[in-house]
């Protein structure tokens, strides 16, 4: 489970060139940092992409690795948003095994977390949740009382508040 205390959220703006992801991944893995989540999407200008990377590892030393990532030719900039108040969101899908008996309670929990039931069968419910990673963790905790069949999370995306770009 992602623990936001030791996981850093980095935003990396890159040229859309082959190999750029491998170079970034290599920089982290060589120094013992584990990439926990990764979201890549095209920027407004299609020549560039925005990556949001969740990495876990020692906070001390991370600054230096950010500098190493920034140094890569295809990286325009890399910044750590762990400790600023940028907006961080993630989406998760969770499928639980529940028949008519527990369904009411499951939907109640879902409603509390603002989830949508996106698939419903005799024996299962699939819920969609959007929010900051802590909220998703909390939902998953509450659903432990049911039999969770599977969970998929997108990994977080981050955007700075205000007029500035991330």
């Amino acid at each position, binding site marked *: 489970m992602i623990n936001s205390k030791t996981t850093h959220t980095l935003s990396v703006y890159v*040229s859309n060139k*082959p*190999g750029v992801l*491998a170079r970034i991944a*290599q920089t982290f893995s*060589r120094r013992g940092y584990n990439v926990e989540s990764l979201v890549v999407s095209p920027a407004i200008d299609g020549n560039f992409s925005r990556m949001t990377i969740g990495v876990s590892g020692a906070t001390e030393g991370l600054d230096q690795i950010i*500098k190493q990532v920034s*140094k890569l*030719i295809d990286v*325009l900039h890399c910044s750590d948003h762990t400790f600023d108040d940028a907006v961080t969101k993630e989406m998760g899908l969770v499928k639980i095994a529940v028949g008519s008996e527990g369904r009411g309670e499951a939907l109640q929990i879902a409603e509390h977390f603002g989830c949508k039931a996106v698939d419903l069968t005799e024996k299962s419910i699939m819920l969609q949740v959007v929010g900051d990673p802590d909220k998703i963790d909390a939902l998953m905790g509450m659903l432990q009382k049911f039999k969770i069949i599977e969970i998929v999370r997108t990994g977080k995306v981050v955007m700075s508040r205000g007029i500035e770009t991330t």
Partner: protein
Amino acid sequence: MEKITMDGGQAIMKSLEAEGVEYIFGYSGGSVIPIFDAMMTTNTNIKFVLVRHEQGAAHMADGYARATGKPAVVLVTSGPGATNVITGIMTAHMDSVPMICLTGQSVSWMIGKDAFQEADIFDISMPVVKHSYLLSSPNDIPRTIREAFHIATTGRPGPVLIDVPKDMSAGPMTGDLHAEMDIPGYQTHENGEINAEHISDIAEALSTSKKPLFLVGHGVMISGAQDAMREFAEKLNVPVTTTLLGKGAFPETHELSLGWLGMHGSAYANKAICDCDLLVNIGSRFDDRILGDPSKFCKQAKIIHVDIDPSEIGKMIQPDIHCIGDALKVINALMPHVSELNTTEWLRKLDGWKEKFPFKFKRQGELKMQHVIDEFYKLSEGNAVVVTDVGQHQMWAGQFYKTDHANNFLSSGGAGTMGFGLPAAIGAQFGRPDDLVICFCGDGGFQMTLFELATAAIHKLPIKIVVLNNHYLGMVRQWQELFYEDRTHGVDLEGNPDFVKLAESYGIKGFNLRRSGDVRRIINAALDYNEGPCLINCECEKTDNVFPMIPAGKPIEDMLIEAPKPHVKLEKPTGST
């Protein structure tokens, strides 16, 4: 836009010519035949040197670049040709040497399908290049080559690899030969403003220091700042030590010079590190060979780090003050803010150490490597380009061949690549045809790339190839003797060939040097020989050890200035290699 019809290979040659390339070092093969053909069908002044192994090509381009400051090109075929250059690329990368490496690749529609001689060199090389490309259209060739040279030679230099699928070099090129670069993410910190606040902080720190010390690295020579560095040190009257790769960034015969520091550097430079109150590092990356134990390094002093690469600041040592920028620009920015310091007492103390702990050896008895190197230094009046291999002889070459000029001491420092010496010397001699090139090798390292004797012979390069032959992998044997209770294993080079006969079989003049009494005579004869390369096989004392020595991972204070007494048991080193 200039539109010409040519094939990709021809576009490569034209683009290389536009970059002012003088030499291509390489080896052919199926996937690069179109490029070799383009050498014949385009009219350029670029000279091609056929090597005997691709590793040799990479070290030649490396030696050429270290000796001249200009990049050369490596051209090899796909698969094994490409993987054979990895050691050479890594060696250049570790020491920030510019290089352009063109590797052939299978045709693009076969990539990833285990085509004949396909190796995924783009990914294999990724951790050891400054940048790399896999061409996907012949029209991208001019832009890619322009970017590659720009990236390789600016900021902190390094190798750039371009993987060229055969259909890229054989296919038609209809793009613009003068295409613009497109690398928005590349910042060199070369032309950036030097932070004025950092400059005044450094000047302030210098003005209040009683025992200042400059630590100067390879970066100063890359920036061409050696003259400014000298002026700067002289103006301030501050002593200077260099790294091994920094030899030549400040004249070693200068009265302010403490020579080079680190594991086998001078005792007085290492002692100065432990005693200074301000250490100003310009253009060195605080390599572990000079730190010993990083957590105990230079604790008593304020530390300043000047580097062009922001990611070096705080990587090994957290400085009190740092400044990012090109060494020459930083020194020039500092110059008007500093004035002579009263360092008389400090310099007197250092002079005392210089007198008390000089590098030394015995000229009598069995032949010593130090003796051979020292005599070469004297007889060549310190004016040679010295190229070393890796091992004990490398350290002694550093100690006894003093370097007064930039780019005159070429050695694989960061990588410690055995086999570097001979091919790098060949590259250096191609780049500096009028200068004396002396190559000091161990018998181990020499045998890793000795096939390049053919290349030296064919081109009649007047290199002095000095094989300092102790019949051992001497440096490893020294560690086993000192730290592993003399359990020598895997270091006896039994089976060495007769190096003189070997040289002669390539048509190279050979000399044997066996006795200390003959050193001067034989070296004079070798220096007088000018019809091509010559090899001097020096039968040296087998079990000599290099001192001073800071055991790897130990604090500098634990330096062994000379051999420990026989009964002294030393702990196994905790630092890397």
